[in-house]
């Protein structure tokens, strides 16, 4: 029996109070699931030749929850001179993407655009080949190459520092650069790197040291407005029945990044105005 039931105003108030607490709880849940976003873009250009400089390291992140990303910074449009540029930073993994084109190079004469990807800052040749293959596959799926006959779109990806999850960071940087360049494509790509531990725990966006005891992992990229996958890169040794829950988890994590990417694009439009 509600003690305020006899006073109409108080009954109303208690109802409001309930509603308010409900929304507060909802908000807390929502905020805790949102990625932490660092708003200031700080590419330490002066230190580029000294990547292992201690000043490049962000403070150690205390224990994160399984669904939380490392502190991230995404920026659409970094340089004015390029046709398109984007920057993404997840913890200590930093990738810069620049696009030149579409423009004719005098040689390419097919009825569709040629998309080339150059990777810089990765030493290991096998790794370069792997990254390039995955990124070319993921990008050629979204760019409308038929709209640019006889043109070349040159994408230069510079890995400034690598601390795990380079592929997903690079895909994020390139999708921002693509948005900045105005090249027609199907939509933004959201991508997340997730690893699986022996005991079945997931880790979202692990750094190199966090991923040490993992039995495998996956980099998953998809276009949210189509709901279609553009890149799957699974590695390690994962039991068959654990693969689809892992992919689904990675997809959920990629969805969580979408607002951050949208915000970066909106900010770049504002700046341009």
């Amino acid at each position, binding site marked *: 029996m509600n003690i305020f039931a006899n006073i109409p105003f108080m009954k109303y108030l208690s109802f409001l109070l309930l509603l308010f607490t409900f929304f507060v709880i909802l908000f807390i849940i929502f905020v805790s699931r949102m990625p932490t976003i660092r708003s200031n873009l700080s590419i330490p250009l002066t230190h580029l030749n000294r990547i292992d400089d201690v000043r490049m390291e962000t403070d150690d992140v205390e224990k994160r929850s399984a669904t939380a990303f490392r502190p991230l910074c995404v920026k659409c449009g970094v340089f004015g001179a390029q046709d398109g540029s984007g920057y993404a930073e997840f913890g200590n993994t930093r990738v810069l993407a620049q696009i030149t084109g579409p423009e004719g190079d005098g040689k390419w004469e097919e009825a569709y655009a040629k998309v080339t990807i150059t990777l810089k800052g990765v030493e290991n*040749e*096998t*790794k370069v*080949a*792997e990254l*390039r*293959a*995955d990124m*070319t*596959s*993921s990008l*050629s*799926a979204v760019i409308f190459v038929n709209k640019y006959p006889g043109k070349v779109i040159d994408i230069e990806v510079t890995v400034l520092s690598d601390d795990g999850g380079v592929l997903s960071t690079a895909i994020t940087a390139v999708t921002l650069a693509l948005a900045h360049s105005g090249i027609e494509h199907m939509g933004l790509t959201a991508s997340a790197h997730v690893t699986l531990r022996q005991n079945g725990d997931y880790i979202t966006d692990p750094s190199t040291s966090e991923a040490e005891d993992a039995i*495998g992992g*996956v980099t998953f990229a998809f*276009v949210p407005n*189509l*709901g*279609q*996958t*553009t*890149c*799957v*890169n*699974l*590695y*390690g*040794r*994962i*039991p*068959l*029945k654990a*693969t*689809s829950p892992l*992919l*689904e988890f990675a*997809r959920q994590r990629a969805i969580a990044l979408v607002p951050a990417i949208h915000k970066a694009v909106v900010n770049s439009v504002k700046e341009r105005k």
Partner: protein
Amino acid sequence: MEVHISDDEKLFLIHGVEQDIRNDGRACADFRPMILERGVLSGTNGSCRVQLGQTTDVLAGIKLELEAYDPIAEKQPKQPMSFHVDFSANASSQFAGKGGDQYGEELSAAFQVAYSRSLDIIPNLSKTQLAAGYRWKIHVDISVLQWAGSVPDACSLAIIGALSDLEIPEVDVTPDDGGKVSIVLKRPRIGGDVRDEEVPVAMWKLIVTSCPMLLTVSKIGTANLVDCSPEEECCIRSQLLIGVAKNLESTPESDDANEYDITCVKQHGGGLLEMESIDDMTKLATRTAKGLYEAIGNRLNTEEKRKPGHSFLL
């Protein structure tokens, strides 16, 4: 060989595979007839040639190297295999000049990923670790001599064949001065009046029943296909490279889901995919792998040894 087929032919093919009938009469999950022969190159420690559907022709050769490494820098034992895929310009005009280099590098990288945990997967591979600082390095070189679709599948079969053909010498490791070790080939004394150099070196072989396989599963229309012919490769919407390895620790009576591990999945050559498709395609890959493991197991057991010193060209 470049394939040019008209839109109508493509449509016919796509409608066909959606009904589970392919132009050559196979069902979607069927492989073309294949030939596997081992011991084809005398200059290698292990070799294998695989022909798929009479036209895709792949040659794999393995060379062993005794490698010294720094045991302090490398605490975790590294996977001893390295892969290199080379596309011959004779295979297809698209590989002429440097045309095949990029695809070759990508494929080598994919094999590297698929075999990255092979120390856990192949039961006696850790025997290549001889002593602290010394190990056998296994270089796998694959040449694609002819191209007619599904090269990764043919390569992975050739790799398994070559690994099963590979003979690794047994060695004696004895401590030496300065904390080093001396490694000597093991020659079991058989008695009689034979000089030491003439006694054959004892050899051991890898257990290949659980080697990872890299299979391509392609989406054409709404159907998933394995082992695509060149005509079918023109109609592919998207393709997954899936690495499947048998899990030897699982009990045989358990269901398929426990029996296989996925070591690699890569989306290849662009295209968009639904989440559910990825699931279906991995399931198809494991089903295919089951059949392939059986077929390759039978072949490796029954194959007759080739006369030493003769290549398959003779």
